[in-house]
């Protein structure tokens, strides 16, 4: 790795002024599990690494009536070790508990996963289906983006020079709602998704009718994809194998995968169909309180 300067600001305003002063030569650091590998391998360059872990707003993990405020520098293990957060957002826990190894989960963050903008980022689909918003601060103040608009291409995100992702805000889970994330990898742990799907459903009080659904896909396009037509197809439908199969078919249609060393286009379309049906069924059981 070429020489860098290291800054560890203790306030958001200080961090933003360092980021703004250094433009595209500054790189925020949270868990470092992507950015340090990229800097060392020459895939990204920086003059200044800005450690965000000492900034209070980025370290917040606050569950309240208005939902979850998830600071961008909060590592995965803090999310799944918090029993109240784990109970409220099992779909997020599915993903936070499967990224990398225990060692990686001790450092890696959901905010970093979003900023790294890998199409395969496991935590991104559940953040999207849960209705997550990215809270961004920069030289021009605050702005908010829906999570599905945050990643703009492989390794590219919507942040302008000088801006920091501060937190991800998840709305409070609606009554009778559930979320699940699954990925396919050819082993049990420590691999990058060939395909991944998150589904969030909201049922009516009887648990028999789907009021609304959101489905998001990983590793089957240049960014994580919100499969809007697939989710919308379930609105107002009774829970049935046919409705779920139709959503699986539409989700598969929304995928735009490539063939690479991990899988083929055909396999990935098939996986999206299967994983959509499986995650919908888990999300429905969770919405009914059955698991």
């Amino acid at each position, binding site marked *: 790795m070429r020489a860098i300067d290291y800054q560890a600001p203790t306030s958001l305003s200080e961090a933003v002024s360092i980021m703004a002063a250094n433009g595209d030569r500054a790189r925020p650091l949270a868990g470092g599990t992507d950015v*340090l590998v990229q800097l060392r391998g020459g895939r990204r360059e920086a003059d200044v690494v800005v450690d965000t872990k000492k900034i209070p707003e980025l370290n917040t993990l606050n569950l309240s009536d208005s939902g979850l405020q998830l600071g961008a520098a909060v590592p995965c293990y803090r999310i799944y070790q918090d029993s109240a957060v784990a109970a409220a957002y099992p779909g997020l826990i599915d993903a936070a508990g499967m990224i990398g190894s225990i*060692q*990686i989960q001790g*450092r890696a963050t959901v905010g970093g996963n979003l900023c790294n903008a890998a199409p395969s980022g496991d935590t991104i689909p559940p953040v999207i289906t849960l209705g997550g918003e990215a809270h961004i601060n920069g030289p021009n103040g605050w702005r908010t983006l829906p999570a599905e608009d945050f990643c703009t291409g492989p390794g590219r995100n919507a942040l302008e020079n000088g801006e920091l992702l501060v937190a991800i805000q998840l709305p409070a889970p609606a009554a009778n709602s559930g979320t699940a994330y699954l990925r396919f990898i050819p082993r049990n742990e420590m691999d990058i998704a060939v395909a991944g799907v998150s589904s969030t459903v909201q049922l009516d009080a009887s648990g028999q009718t789907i009021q609304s659904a959101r489905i998001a896909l990983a590793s089957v396009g240049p960014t994580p994809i919100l499969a809007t037509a697939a989710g919308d197809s379930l609105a107002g439908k009774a829970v049935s194998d046919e409705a779920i199969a139709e959503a699986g078919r539409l989700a598969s249609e929304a995928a735009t995968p490539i063939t690479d060393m991990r899988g083929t286009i055909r396999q990935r379309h098939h996986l999206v169909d299967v994983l959509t049906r499986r995650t919908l069924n888990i999300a429905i059981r969770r919405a009914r309180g059955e698991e």
Partner: protein
Amino acid sequence: MPGLVHVTTTINGNQTDFLCEPRQSLLECLRDVVGMTGSKEGCNDGNCGACTVNMDGRIVCSCLVLGVEAQGAEVNTIEGVASAEGLHPIQQSFLENAALQCGICTPGFIVAAKALLEAEPDADEARIRHWLAGNLCRCTGYDKIVRAVLDAGERMRAG
């Protein structure tokens, strides 16, 4: 050209001061600056776990931590596992179960297994295999390592 940074940290209970460049990983600082070569470099990108250390109560890959991030932290390495009285039960059980061959991965496995067994001394085989998925071994085929950790759990439960 940024200069050297003075880092004060606690390594295996001892306050330790070192100077490093901001770009240097904690692993490089431990091995090349502090002279503690127990933690090994395997892949240098977070896949193999040979550099595993315990930092503020969590196991991490020290190759994916900057040395400057250790400022004020509590770092525990393989060098701190044995006591003056002798080997730690995990080390003893690695020896008795022949859970190592070339030995490069062993410090990482022991530091990782120690964190697990201290929190969950009754961890079962599935839990141990899941916990150790971030540690790679090219010699043993893992069975002897898993058996050694199960055995160490028994020893630690027996006190």
